[in-house]
């Protein structure tokens, strides 16, 4: 089996993940895209392990570790998403702009962001 096959697969998966992270509005789908990217990495690890055959199974071990990390990451990530939801009433990453640079450098009051978020969610619910 040519090595480029899994590697190209990994590249495609990774870039789909990148696209998902950059383009998806919903924070949870962003997290899902992260998983795709992690999987691409895992694929690389495993493929190189199978190619090099160092006898220590380094790639596979690391892949397992990465899977563990991914579990931890998704746990924390979802906790944050939930917090976002509780704070803003939506999980729209695009609308979560509390860190925006205001005039005079003062962060936006919470109300404005929340209202905007709510309308977005209501719109989503309505459609």
């Amino acid at each position, binding site marked *: 089996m040519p090595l480029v096959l899994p590697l190209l697969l990994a590249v495609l998966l990774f870039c789909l993940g990148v696209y998902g992270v950059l*383009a998806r509005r919903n924070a*949870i789908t962003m997290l899902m895209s992260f998983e795709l990217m992690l999987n691409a990495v895992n694929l690389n690890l495993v493929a190189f392990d199978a190619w090099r055959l160092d006898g220590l199974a380094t790639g596979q071990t690391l892949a397992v570790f990465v899977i563990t990390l991914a579990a931890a990451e998704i746990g*924390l990530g979802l906790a944050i998403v939930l917090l976002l939801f509780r704070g803003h009433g939506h999980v729209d990453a695009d609308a979560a702009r509390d860190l925006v640079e205001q005039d005079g450098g003062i962060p936006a009051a919470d109300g404005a962001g929340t209202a905007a978020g709510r309308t977005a969610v209501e719109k989503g619910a309505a459609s």
Partner: protein
Amino acid sequence: MTTALFSIAGAVAIAAAVLVVTSRRIVHAALWLVVALGAVAGCFGALHAEFVALVQILVYVGAIVVLVLFALMLTKAPTNPLPALTTRRSPFAAIVAGVLALLLGTGVVIAFGNEKIEPVPAGSATDVGTAVFRIWVLPFEVLSVLLLAALIGAIVLSQRKLSERSDRLSSSGKED
């Protein structure tokens, strides 16, 4: 044989992944994620990494996706298709991702275009087990600590009262 298997699994993974990032229904996207992850597990299998493939299915499909679905549920994600599931930047993001793919793909092909993976006689679960508990035991333990920390972190984050936050915000607003 393995190549064919790998190619089929890979094709499935790609297709599912595309659906994950484009599906207009969030829940569908999560379910497509299951497919994609499963297909990747198949790829692992084709690469004779049965243990990783199993862990993949167990952890990802069994735990992570379930978590994601729970999260979708908790955030009251609608099941109907949403018109604006992607941002306005999505074409731009697609271009960026495409360029990145082109770049990485070219790099990979140039670097490893002629390399071949030799077929492996037997499974590698024993090797992995030996490696993890012999050579990688310290990272392994550190990882457990990390998991614990993540656990505590997740709890702390989700236990946080909203009122504290708004209080802090309003008080900081007064200061300004």
